[in-house]
């Protein structure tokens, strides 16, 4: 199954309530059944530097707890995509969540790259674009929003680089240790997303008619 004309998703397998797999150029994003979660998934999950601005409650995760975390997503209105490279699909380097409110055609997304060897390598832009393309064009979501905690300069950079629309600052909204921090909200709307897709399609068609490769 493909999403037609997608620069972000090269392959898609989706069975609502059961399973979803997205393939981007370098990565696969796949939901997992709890029993498929192995110790390998804990490699970076409890790293304090990885977790510090994630807003993920619950302290230290062991395998049963991580499996419970996976089980809490239903692959219909909530998705937990484990991100891995095409070459090593059994060793996730991060994860992305998508929560869908059908009554408002609204979704919230978050993403974490836990394997520090992949920091600064454009993973978030590529992986999140696959999730957004799935949300906007497969689920027909009309708005997606996401957050970052104010001290998280890397997350803020990524929202800016991906040209999300700044919405608001939720003052002292989260707690990191004993400190309250601002939460910054960004949004992406379906019409803007489709405008970008249309621009990409047009560029591809122009390049094809010129005999070029884009």
């Amino acid at each position, binding site marked *: 199954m493909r999403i037609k004309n997608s620069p972000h998703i090269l392959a898609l397998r989706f069975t609502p309530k059961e399973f979803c797999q997205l393939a981007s150029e370098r990565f696969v994003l796949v939901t997992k059944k709890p029993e498929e979660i192995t110790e390998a998934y804990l490699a970076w999950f409890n790293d304090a530097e990885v977790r510090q601005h994630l807003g993920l409650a619950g302290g230290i995760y062991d395998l049963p707890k991580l499996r419970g975390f996976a089980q809490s997503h239903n692959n219909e209105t909530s998705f937990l995509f484990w991100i891995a490279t095409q070459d090593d699909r059994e060793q996730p380097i991060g994860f992305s969540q998508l929560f869908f409110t059908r009554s408002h055609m609204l979704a919230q997304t978050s993403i974490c790259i836990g394997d520090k060897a992949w*920091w600064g390598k454009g993973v978030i832009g590529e992986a999140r674009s696959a999730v957004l393309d799935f949300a906007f064009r497969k689920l027909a979501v009309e708005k997606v929003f996401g957050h970052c905690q104010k001290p998280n300069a*890397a997350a803020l*950079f990524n929202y*800016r680089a991906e040209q999300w629309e700044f919405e608001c600052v939720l003052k002292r909204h989260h707690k990191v240790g004993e400190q309250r921090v601002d939460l910054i909200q960004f949004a992406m709307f379906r019409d803007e997303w489709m405008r970008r897709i249309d621009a990409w399609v047009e560029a591809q068609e122009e390049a094809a008619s010129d005999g070029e490769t884009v």
Partner: protein
Amino acid sequence: MQDARDMLAEAVGAEPASIPKTAAIGDLAGWDSLAHMRLIAAMEARLARPLTTEEMLEVTSLETIHKVLSA
């Protein structure tokens, strides 16, 4: 502006002279998330205080780096 240019150049691993006046997120090679973390840390060290949320949001180009450092 030279201060801001030097700081951005250091963060992205480039020579200051190679940083154009119009340098911005998305069009300057090497300005990735890790470089951005280094840039923010350098700005905060220079100002001897954390950037405010509004300042963090503003830092998107050489020009706005200069603006925040000059405020």
